[in-house]
């Protein structure tokens, strides 16, 4: 409580009235009241739902989660799933697939968005206009149409696996068919562990070196070749170790067996369509955010940096980008959230995401609408809050760098 607030309240005798008159405590009281009201409404909604379910003769129970799902899931890269697995496992597979497409979508959308955003500011007329057309075309068509378009293009225009039978496949090891993109999978032997260790050592080394270089620069003003050393440590070191241990790896090539390719790794058309469409769509918005962020840094800043004798790339790196990021990160967060939530459109093309598994097939086969939708809602909420929390943390971090 601030001292001014105490001084103002000293006249009142009733302690409750005094609390109410105090601006800070009044705020707290109103907030508690609001929270109580919100919880009351939520509790009422829940009890209403339970009462109505009861009237329909459907109790509220999550026991079905531990019963066999009895259906198969065609896409589960990391989790073993069979029709004997439980509905809970089906939900986890759905969560895995949602996270997979969300994370890979965020990475690609960010990369594309930054490139297009910078091109939008290019002095090159053609580049500038191309980027402009890209942004306007992409963001003014609903994302569902992009998803259906990409899916339709992949499924209808690419050859079926049968086209690769006999001599149709030639000697190729990569197959782009309407059942997905098949490519060789690395098959590591135990010795490859050394390479993994080298990779981790490389990352740690690079971080240590970057810190040292920064300290050195602040102390002496000397600039160290951080980029090259980082590449050397993270890429070069594992490669040397890999070569020294005698390339402990074989390739698992995809081959046409029966109806489909077997072996290798595959990117299924449903994943590809969803991933590309979400990334491209979101990248148009990110491009505009990046452009706005860079333009928000006044030109005087660049000129001042140049006047101090900084070269072009150093002034970008040290002056423009840190200030631009401050503007870019908050709206970027909402784009990441949008992409994650839009991934639920997977249902339109039969990608087994969270909505398709627990919120779709399980829901339908068990008739547990309320229970399944609650799981789906809470899961999306959790994912979104986590992304938000991470981006807020990052935003705070880059704010501290500001002078």
């Amino acid at each position: 409580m601030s001292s001014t607030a105490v001084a103002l309240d000293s006249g009142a005798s009733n302690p409750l009235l005094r609390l109410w008159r105090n601006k800070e405590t009044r705020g707290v009281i109103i907030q508690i009241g609001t929270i109580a009201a919100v919880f009351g409404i939520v509790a009422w909604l829940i009890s209403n739902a339970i009462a109505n379910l009861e009237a329909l003769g459907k109790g509220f129970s999550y026991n079905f989660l531990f019963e066999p799902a009895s259906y198969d899931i065609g896409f589960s890269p990391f989790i073993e799933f069979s029709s004997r697995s439980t509905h809970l496992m089906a939900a986890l597979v759905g969560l895995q697939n949602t996270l997979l497409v969300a994370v890979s979508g965020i990475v690609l959308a960010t990369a594309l968005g930054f490139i297009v955003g910078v091109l939008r500011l290019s002095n090159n007329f053609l580049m500038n206009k191309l980027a402009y057309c890209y942004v306007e075309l992409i963001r003014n068509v609903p994302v569902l149409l992009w998803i259906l378009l990409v899916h339709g293009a992949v499924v209808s225009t690419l050859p079926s696996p049968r086209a690769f039978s006999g001599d149709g496949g030639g000697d190729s090891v990569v197959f782009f068919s309407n059942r997905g993109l098949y490519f060789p999978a690395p098959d590591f032997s135990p010795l490859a562990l050394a390479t993994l260790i080298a990779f981790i050592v490389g990352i740690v080394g690079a971080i240590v070196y970057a810190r040292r270089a920064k300290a050195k620069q602040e102390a002496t003003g000397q600039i160290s070749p951080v980029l090259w050393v980082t590449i050397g440590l993270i890429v070069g070191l594992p490669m040397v170790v890999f070569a020294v241990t005698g390339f402990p790896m074989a390739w698992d090539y995809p081959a046409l067996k029966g109806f489909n390719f077997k072996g290798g790794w595959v990117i299924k058309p449903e994943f590809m369509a969803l991933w590309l469409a979400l990334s491209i769509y979101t990248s148009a918005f990110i491009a505009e955010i990046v452009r706005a962020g860079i333009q928000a840094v006044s030109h005087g800043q660049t000129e001042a940096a140049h006047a101090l004798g900084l070269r072009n790339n150093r002034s970008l790196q040290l002056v423009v980008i840190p200030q631009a990021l401050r503007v870019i990160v908050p709206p970027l967060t909402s784009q990441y959230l949008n992409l994650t939530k839009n991934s639920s459109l997977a249902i339109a093309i039969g990608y087994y995401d969270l909505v398709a598994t627990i919120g779709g097939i399980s829901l339908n086969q068990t008739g547990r609408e309320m229970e399944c939708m609650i799981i789906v809602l809470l899961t999306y909420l959790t994912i979104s809050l986590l992304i938000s929390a991470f981006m807020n943390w990052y935003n705070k971090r880059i704010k501290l760098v500001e002078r």
Partner: protein
Amino acid sequence: MKKTLGTLAAIAAAALVSTSASAGTLDDVKARGELNCIVTTGLVGFAYTDEQGTWRGFDADFCRAAAAAVVGDGSKVKFVPTTGKTRFTALSAGEGDVLYRNTTITMSRDVDLKLSFLGVNYYDGQGFMVPKALGVSSAKDLDGASVCIQTGTTTELNLADFFRVNNISYEPVPIETNEEAQANYIAGRCDVYTTDRSGLAATRAALDDPAAHVLLPEIISKEPLGPAVAQGDEDWADTMRWVLKAIIAAEELGITQANVMEKAASATGNPNVDRILGTEGSFGEMIGLDNKWAVRAIAAVGNYGEIFERNIGQSTPIGLDRGLNAQWTNGGLMYAEPIR
């Protein structure tokens, strides 16, 4: 679990506006003057819209028969198209009064999903359709195939069981509607389309070159398809059940769309016919309708055999034979319980 929730619900119910059933569904439908009938989003022969946008098909005709019996006019039907996934929710949420949507009768749907099934209007089984060019002659040769499958159906579960039991692998390609399945199958996203054999026949008939596709001999499940209503309104279930039975019995008794008016004009002397057509007894009143209920239904769409032949029979592109769906007198399973 149920008990604690029951207590909770009781407390809640006391504080709430009751949203449970008002008057009976029968009165609601009569007052509305229109029957809301849940059908598929489109399956040629069973329920689909023609060029004029009119709903046609086997299931659509049963909807019309029900509407004719209840509100007196077979055209007073509002069709509610649903996917395999949305149909039960639509029914329990009251978006439709009755469900005629190639729906397999199963124990868990009857008990757990709280449906009341009214009887079977088509005996079916799950089959597989493949392009002839694949050279597959048995479903057991399908190891490693990609299979298009409508989600939220019993066929999805049968498929998983079939491949598991036979120890062969497959890639399920989930789709929502029959149109989508057709598109994916034609594009070659899947090698096989599996659903009820009637649905496969209908889908094949709608393809550009039906002769290039074959149905595999295996029938991997029993799929008794039938209408359902939401559980909890037994009077409404009775009304809908006996409209279905009357349509089936009409064929057995030789009552057709053409002769129903003539036969209903006065007692024919055949008590079975007279009871259905309301010239003997008051069976219509027992189910909350008047005694000409079945006359209107048959006059609107004909008897079971006529509905079958008009929509999916040998003379149509779908070309299904009666098989199990022949009257019991002809060696089939269609056996309407006596109306008396």
